[in-house]
């Protein structure tokens, strides 16, 4: 029997709010090394808020986030977490004044003392990994949205992170490009053993890449587990959704999204 992998990230009883309004309440989960952990839910359910709180961009009202057992509320813990992880933003969040190559090299030039030659070769490998080597000299405004996302992935991978975090990696992309991003995420796990936390509402992606799924609804955990756990969930909405997956995953995904968005308002 396989033993559980060591925990890399733990979120404990997390509550977040703005101006006295709770956006997220009591979110609790732990993800193991080498795992692809997906947080999903309808628009406005608090997915991105959870992600930004994990990243230390939003202070929680209650609860804590720990990376390798160390709280990110501690400034040194937060710094360690940020230097050990990479984040891929929804729109790439690349520096528009810099070239793609300069963007990808940024974490290396900021946090390492490698000579320029090593930095350059590392960056070229990362760009080749995401298929953007030919566009290294372009600026973010000169490439497509899908390319910007891949450049964001290359930048996040530049420092060889232990944990990679994604905000809607396939959002707004055509199905073929989205499938390419999903395949890249799977290859990163399979070939590099990388741990990944993915926030998305794209159900086709969720069921292609997720080892475990946390479903949020109205800022609270509606379900947590793998597909089988979700199928046995006590929540009627979650169960109904999973059971519909038995037929056609892609087709059922659209139906589920409509149901959740309607019910979760």
């Amino acid at each position: 029997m396989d033993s559980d992998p060591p925990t890399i990230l733990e979120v404990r009883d997390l509550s977040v709010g703005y101006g006295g309004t709770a956006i997220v309440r009591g979110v609790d989960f732990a993800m193991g090394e080498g795992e692809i952990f997906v947080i999903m839910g309808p628009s406005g359910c608090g997915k991105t808020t959870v992600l930004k709180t994990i990243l230390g961009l939003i202070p929680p009202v209650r609860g804590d986030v720990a990376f390798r057992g160390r709280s990110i509320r501690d400034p040194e813990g937060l710094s360690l977490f940020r230097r050990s992880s990479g984040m891929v933003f929804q729109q790439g969040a690349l520096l528009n004044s810099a070239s793609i190559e300069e963007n990808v090299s940024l974490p290396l030039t900021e946090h390492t003392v490698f000579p320029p030659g090593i930095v350059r070769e590392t960056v070229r490998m990362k760009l080749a990994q995401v298929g953007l080597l030919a566009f290294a000299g372009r600026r973010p405004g000169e490439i497509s949205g899908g390319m910007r996302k891949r450049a964001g992935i290359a930048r996040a991978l530049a420092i060889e992170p232990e944990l990679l975090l994604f905000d809607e990696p396939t959002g707004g992309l055509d199905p073929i490009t989205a499938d390419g991003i999903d395949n890249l995420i799977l290859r990163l796990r399979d070939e590099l053993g990388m741990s990944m936390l993915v926030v998305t509402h794209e159900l086709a992606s969720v069921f292609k890449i997720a080892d475990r799924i946390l479903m949020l609804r109205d800022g609270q955990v509606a379900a947590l587990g793998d597909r089988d756990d979700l199928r046995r969930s006590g929540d009627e909405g979650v169960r109904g959704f999973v059971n519909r997956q038995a037929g056609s995953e892609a087709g059922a995904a659209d139906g589920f999204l409509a149901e959740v968005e309607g019910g979760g308002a």
Partner: protein
Amino acid sequence: MSAPILAMPERLDRTSALAVHESILAALETGEGDLRLDFGGVGRADAIGVAAILEAFRETRRRGRRLRLLNVAERHRRLFAFLRVDGVLADEPGPAPRERLLGRIGGWWMGVRHSAVEHAALHVDAVLYTFVAPFRGRGLKAAHFWHQLTGIGAGAVGIVAMVSFLIGLIMALQAALVLKDFGAVIYVANMVGVTMTRELGPLLTAVILAARTGSSIAAELGTMVVTEEVDALRVMDVEPRRFLVAPRFAALAVALPCLATLSDAAGIAGGFAVATVGLGIGFEHYWIQTVTGLHVSDLVTGLVKSFVFANVIAIVSCHEGLAIRGGPEEVGRATTRAVVTSIILVIVSDFVFTTLFYFLG
């Protein structure tokens, strides 16, 4: 006199919303105490009709009074819930007028204090990252500094020189108008020289840079906030104040005194052009008069002022850009705030320095 009970119409919708709103405002003007709206006769209602009630509800609270809804049918309560206003239409009294006034003053004061503390903290960080951190290997990068200096400094040479030259021309002409009656036209050189170096050179340059560079900095940083580039830097553990603020701060601190010196020279050249072409004063005569009229302290005063102005513009602009919360429309507002606040603070600090130098001799 208490306010009457207002009967709501059978159709509380877009056809009656305006009339309902006006009748409620009229009742508020004439009566006192709780205002009561009778929903007993209401049949059809829609969002616009409910909006009129909601606006009346807020208006009564603003005036420290209460609005009570009478005989509200269950289906109308459901409509309130569907429109997400059931919580807003709770029956709670508003604050008294005196409390509201104190609240506003308190809120304004807290805002000013908070803003001052944030500006001060940003200034301290910018100074540390610019002047202290480089000695620890964690300061601003030379390439970033030069990139900013090129844009801020070299890019503004033309406009600063042109405007200052024209101001020198104008000032010499205006001074000559007065001084020729006293046979003292030669003192145009003294006036232009001292005014440009002590006052107008630094001030003009600061106003030009507040408009040209301050707006650019606020818009650029604001856009970076909106597009999550600043968040991206934070999650890469790259401190935005070091990466973004320090190079701009340092570049302005170097560029503004240099440009102010250029402005001094251009203004004096403008005065010289008027003096030689229009007033018949020879080059040598004008030059000697300018040099003897100027003291080192005039130049130092101008340079100190321009350094302070650079600090003001850099910190205000960077703060406005980084403080943006919301979408792209906020970028425009922040840009306007950056320019207006910078110019006001530059003039206030100029007044403070001028007063200080005057009394210190």
